[in-house]
């Protein structure tokens, strides 16, 4: 199965710019389905980026983050070819991770 995570990490001078797109329903638990039954909340709670054993960015998310979340940040101290490990965990305990290469 293809990963739910897509990452583009590009080095620009001394700053690595990281754009991430994740496939996830991000259900709020407030929306009803066609039968009028509530769709249970299902959303990513934490998204972590690790570079060389150091967490460079940590996202705590609630249900108000849009479906198929997008997030962009940048950090210093990376070199071309470095690995960036991205992982998420949702409120049901599901997880996914991906190791991206900084370009």
């Amino acid at each position, binding site marked *: 199965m293809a990963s739910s995570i897509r990452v583009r990490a590009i080095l620009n001078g001394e700053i690595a710019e990281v754009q991430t797109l994740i496939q996830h329903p991000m259900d709020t638990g407030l929306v009803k389905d066609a039968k009028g039954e509530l769709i249970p909340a299902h959303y990513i709670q934490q998204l972590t980026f*690790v570079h060389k054993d150091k967490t460079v960015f*940590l996202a705590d998310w609630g249900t*108000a*983050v849009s479906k198929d979340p997008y997030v*962009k940040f*940048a950090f210093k101290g990376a070199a071309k070819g470095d690995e960036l490990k991205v992982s998420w965990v949702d409120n049901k305990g599901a997880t996914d991770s991906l190791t991206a290469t900084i370009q």
Partner: protein
Amino acid sequence: MTASFGPLANRRLLLKGAGLVALIGLGNAVLHAAPAFAATNDNKYPEDAFRQKNATDAIKALYGRDHEASDKIKLDAPEIAENGGVVPIAVTTTLPDVTSIAFIVAENPNALAASYKIPEGTVPAVANRLKMAKTSSVIALVESGGKLYSATKEVKVTVGGCGG
């Protein structure tokens, strides 16, 4: 037959080895990540803050302190959002020693939308996409040098983001 066992056994060994390396790697990551976060509290998910209904309670639960408006925070959000389900919102700041950035959508059922830890070496800027139930003020909170600063912008929503 015997010849085919060789590579298979090797492959299995390799897999085992890879698993071991992955485990050790994970252990290291956890061990090293911990001290990096010691300065900015821990990296526990702030469940309680996300459960709060209104902005004041959410900010209190997340930071436990008051915030003051700062013109050193630039909050980028549309004047009018046609689709409340996907509202692009970004923040950048020139404040020093930023340790975290959070987004509040005051009129949402739960005001806190997202909170980001900014370790040293990470640029104090975040762009993301949030859901907005209706027209609301959006508050960007920036924790800088142990103080809490904010920027607020009103975003008009024509179609709410809770319809799915």
